[in-house]
Structures are given as C-alpha cells and as structure tokens.
C-alpha cells in the first residue's frame, strides 16, 4: 500500500490550509435536537496532520494494550510471539512532543481459542494502524507518549463501579481481557467519526473511514463475544453497561456545557443491555445492543477531541467548565503528544 501512503503524505503536505467549516443549522443536523455546531474548535488553524496525530496517540494506546495482552511485549520490542503472529515491529520514528515509556500490563493466559485468536488478530491490525499513520505522517508524526497499561484499568474500573474494581486486571483471564478491550473499541469509533468531517483531503477521509470501519468491526467482535459468554448480563456483559455509563458521563463533561454536536446525544454510550424496539409497527419486542449508536436513528456516535480526551484521561480534560490542556491522567499520565495547533 505504498501508493496509498504516499498519496496520504502528499495530501497532508498539500493541505496546509484549513478549510473553514461553516457553523450553523443545517438540514440534516437539524434532525437532532440542539444540534447546531460541529465543534467548538472548528475555527482553529489545525491541519489534517493534527487530526491524524490525535488518532496516532489513540492507536499507540490500543496497539500497546493488545500487544501486551497478546504477546507480553510492547509494539517496539518484538518477541517470538509477536513475530510468529506477523505483528509489525514498530520503529518509534515519531519525534514531535515528548517520548514516554509504556508501563504495566502482562500477557493474558488465554484458555479459549475464540478469545485468543481475536486478540492476535486485533493486535496485528492495531499495529498496522500505528505503522500506517507513522509512515503517512513522516517527520510530522508525534512521539509515543507515556502510556499506563496497569493501574489505569483499576482506576477506571473503580470509577465505573465494577465489582472488585480496585483489583481489576484485564490481563487476568479471557473474560477480563474482553472487558479491557471493551474500554477502547467503541471510543475509537466515536473518535474517528468525530474527526471524519474535519479532514480536508478526500484520500485522508477514505483512509480514516476505513480505519473507523475496522475499529467498528473490533467493537462488534468484542460485544458479540461478550454476549456469547454472558448472554444474560449477569457478569461481564453487565460490566459493559457500567463502563458505557462512565464513558458517557466523561463525554458529557467534555462538552464543557455546550449542546451535543450532530450525531451525539446524552447519553452517548450504551452497553449490552436489552432495550425495547418496534419492528414493522409492532412495539412488543426487545433487542440486545451489539451496536453502540444513538437510540433514534441508529447512527454511531461522534465525539469531539475534548470528549475523547476526557474519556482516555479519566476526566483530565475538564476542570469545572474549562478545558484542560494537556489533559493528563489514567492511560496518558503525561498527556498526549501534539503539534502546536494539535489536540492534547
């Protein structure tokens, strides 16, 4: 895919000016109550590279989590397991910002082929996303920031009120790993969705849409597997509701008092709960949420960068009604890396 990467790079270089987004009520956005702006940051002088670097920070996090859980190593230190799986060994070539270390985490003692094989596939794919973005961004790529894969999960699990949350480890078992993965995947979808309309280059958009699709495949995979393991919601499927409620709370705080943007609602996250549906006019049935999408139109949620930051830093992006930059906390103990006009 060298051609694709080269094209992507060319577009980033060529797209140094920021297309002005017209804010205002539009026909489609008007379908949503209170939907009257895309992003409070829409007028800022950021580029496609800033948006892709924001994505790269998230991919560093996801890829390292999956590499650690699956292979017991980080993305830049290949071992026998990662090489046998064909997972890319990442050269940490990004230089913008401050490079940090990845701490915590360990290989999961998988016992089922289902979960183990999904973990391997996902690790390889997230590694390729890091590689793609690093290659495309070239010298504009941000360095890998400090990432906490250990105590961060206990902090989040406690905040989500998961039973025994202070001792929660996503590396303890197949089931625990699925819960850990659940924390990330839907967030990735909303982040790429929120960024899609901000990209100025058509080929960047195509790539971002393609990566978003993969994140949604992953999210569907995780939710489906959790549903098979815990069809009644008594155990880990119930945890998904707790995690989604926390993400929705952090996301709402990230709005800083503004109304939700298009394709966002309050709440903007749903776990695997059963909910009533009307099919063909028959209102007397129920369904299980494999999809994380708005309750009316069933379009996936879109979040702005502050909302996403507030989730992955466990509330570090907001102080009262003010944004905090850099947002620090939980998975990013020193914050994300970004260029001068980027998002952190």
């Amino acid at each position, binding site marked *: *895919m060298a051609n*694709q990467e080269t094209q992507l790079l060319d577009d980033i270089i060529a797209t140094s000016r920021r297309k002005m*987004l017209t804010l205002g009520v*539009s*026909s*489609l*956005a008007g*379908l949503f109550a209170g939907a009257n702006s895309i992003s409070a940051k829409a007028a800022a002088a950021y580029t496609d590279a800033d948006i892709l670097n924001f994505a790269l920070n998230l991919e560093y996090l996801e890829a390292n989590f999956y590499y650690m859980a699956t292979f017991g190593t980080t993305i830049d230190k290949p071992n026998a397991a990662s090489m046998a*799986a064909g997972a890319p060994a990442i050269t940490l070539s990004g230089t913008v910002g401050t490079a940090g270390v990845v701490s915590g985490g360990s290989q999961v003692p998988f*016992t089922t*082929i*289902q979960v*183990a*094989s*999904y973990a*391997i*596939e996902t690790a*390889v*794919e997230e590694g*390729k*996303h890091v*590689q793609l973005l690093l290659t495309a961004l070239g010298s504009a790529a941000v360095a890998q920031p400090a990432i906490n894969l250990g105590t961060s999960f206990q902090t989040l699990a406690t905040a989500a009120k998961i039973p025994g949350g202070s001792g929660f480890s996503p590396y303890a078992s197949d089931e625990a790993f699925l819960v850990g993965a659940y924390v990330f995947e839907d967030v990735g979808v909303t982040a*790429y*969705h929120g960024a*899609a*309309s901000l990209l100025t280059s*058509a080929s960047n*958009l*195509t790539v971002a*849409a*393609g*990566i*978003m*699709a*993969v994140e*949604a*495949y*992953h999210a*569907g*995979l995780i*939710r489906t*597997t959790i549903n*098979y393991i815990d*069809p009644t919601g008594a155990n880990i499927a119930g945890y998904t509701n707790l995690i989604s409620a926390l993400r929705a709370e952090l996301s709402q705080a990230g709005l800083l008092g503004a109304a939700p943007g*298009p*394709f966002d609602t309050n709440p903007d996250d749903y776990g695997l709960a059963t909910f009533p*549906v009307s*099919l*063909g006019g028959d209102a007397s049935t*129920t*369904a*299980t949420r*494999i*999809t994380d*999408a708005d309750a009316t*139109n*069933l*379009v*996936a949620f*879109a979040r702005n960068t502050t909302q996403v930051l507030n989730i992955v830093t466990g509330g570090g992006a907001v102080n009262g009604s003010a944004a905090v930059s850099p947002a620090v906390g939980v998975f990013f103990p020193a914050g994300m890396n970004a260029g001068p006009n980027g998002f952190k």
Partner: protein
Amino acid sequence: MANLSALINRGVSRRRFLAGVGASAGAAAALNLTGCGGSSSTTPTPTPTPTPTAPTDEDVLNFALNLEYLEASFYLYAATGAGLEAADTGPGSASTYKTVGTVSVGDAAQVAGLTPGEQQILNEIAFEEQAHVRFLRSALGSAAVPMPDIDLSFFGPLAVAAGITTAATGSGSFNPFSSFDYFLVGAFIFEDVGVTAYSGAAPLISPAGVTAGYLTAAAGILAVEAYHAGYVRTSLTGRAIAAGSAAAYPYLGAANAVEALRATLTVGASAAPSTSGSVETELTLPTSLTTASSIVAASAADAVGFARTVDQVLHIVYGSVKMGATGGGFFPNGINSVFATTTA
C-alpha cells in the same frame, strides 16, 4: 483454502457463466443472476438516467437508501416474518420515481429455531436497518426515492452461483430463513458490502454536503454496518471454532464461497478490479491459542477497511458482471437511482 483457490481459479469461466455467455446446463441460474431473461427483463423499468459526472448529494444518499431498503426488508422478514411498513416505502413528493415496489418473498419468514438470545440480536439488526431507512428518508425529505422491487428469492440462485449447493429452489436449496446458521450466511452477503458501499460513497459527498452533515451521517451508518459485519463474522468464526472443524461447520465455507462470488462480481465486465485489487478478507478457522482469526475485512497491508465504488456494489446486488445491466438479482427491475445501470 483449497475451495477458495478453486473458485478463484475458476474465475473466468464463472464470469462467463454469470454473464450468460453461451448455452450451459446452468442457464436457468444464469438467467436469474443476470436478469436478462424471463419476464422481469420485459417489465418496464424506471427510465435509466445517464449517470451524471457529478452526482448530487441526494443521488448519493438515495443510492444508500436503495441498499437500506434491501437490508431492512431482509432483516425484518428474518426477525418478524414481515417487511417494512408502507409508511416507510413511499416516494417523496419531489422524487421522479413514483412507483412503490413490491417484495417477492420467496422463502422469507421469521428464521426457524432461534434461541431467545439469537432472536434478540436479529431484532436489533432489523431495528437498526429500519431506522436507517427512516433516517435517510427523513434526511432526503421530498427527494426520497420509493422502495424498488426487491426479490428475496434470489438467495437460492446466488448460492448456486457461489457453488454452495446445486438446487436454486425447493429441496436442497439455500434458504437463509431456515436456521440461525443459514441466516448468518445470508446476512454475510450484505454486511461487508454495506460497509464498503458507504466507504466508497463518502468521498462523493460535496463540500456543501459535508457542511450539511451528510458525510458524518454516512460515516456513522458505515460504523453501524461494520458493527453488524463484526457480529456476523464473529458468530460464524466462533461457532466454527466451537464445532471444531470446517467439515463440522460448513457455514464458514459457504460464507467464503459467497466472498469469492462477490469478488468475481465486483470486478464487473472489465474482468479486472477497477480500484485497488481484492476487497475481500476470507474467514479462517483458528485451531490453536496462537493462530489469528480473520474477523475484520480490511487490507492486509494496512488493516484499513475496504471501499467499493457504486458500480462494484451494483454488480453484487444485481448478481451480474454485465456492463449496462439495469437490474437483476435482489433488484429484478433495478434500483431507483441515477446509478441504476452498471457502467463497467
């Protein structure tokens, strides 16, 4: 692997078969597939409009609406035994297409033998596709096209063309409504296609359409389609792992045969992929704790989801490789769209 290789190697003859070149013992299926024989081809169709060089945003959304009519009809029948409500199928007041199509139901019925959990999932997917129809119709307003004629009996001939079975109808034919596993294979026909269709259409949306929220809407629906595809592919893979072998779970192989057929159809009459090569990822059967699954349909190099052009999607849902095809397959009289005719 052997089966897929065999199918790929048979690609040329398969294309000829599908295109109805020469008389063959499979003529009946070929005619059904191409829609060039029988009474359907003599039925007046909405006057095909030459594809304009710059389709409007309404054209793009209406193309998506045609696909959603098909998906919603399939899933609603599978979940409830009935299709879309009349209120969800009529033309907008300004649409040039005035006739509401009918659904040829074939074997369509509520899927037999579902567990309560499986029923819940079918309800969810049906509810979401129904919501997409309503959402697109609402967004398009008076420009919304009505539902075209839909043929849900096409699964039989399609399965014959894919080499899954030899009977197109009746005993021994492929019926996605006969069990949950057969349903998964039927759903598999659509879901990855929906993802790639939205990815391919997204860059066609105009700058004004981006401002109006159309792009974000398309991206959000794309994500939901990918959740669904993730569900279907995870279920097929997980059930195959549980069964222990490909022989014990033939549905995995059937899904891959569908993929091979889609790949053949995607290239169209030009007999070569018009964009970036294969847009399919074969499902695999992980057999140990150290082998990867193949849930995500994405490029092997970068793990970026695929895109299909409008024309490539049309070839699949028409079940035809022909250039200039105006209908066939699931849409016996074509779709209600400026894109109704295959162009390559």
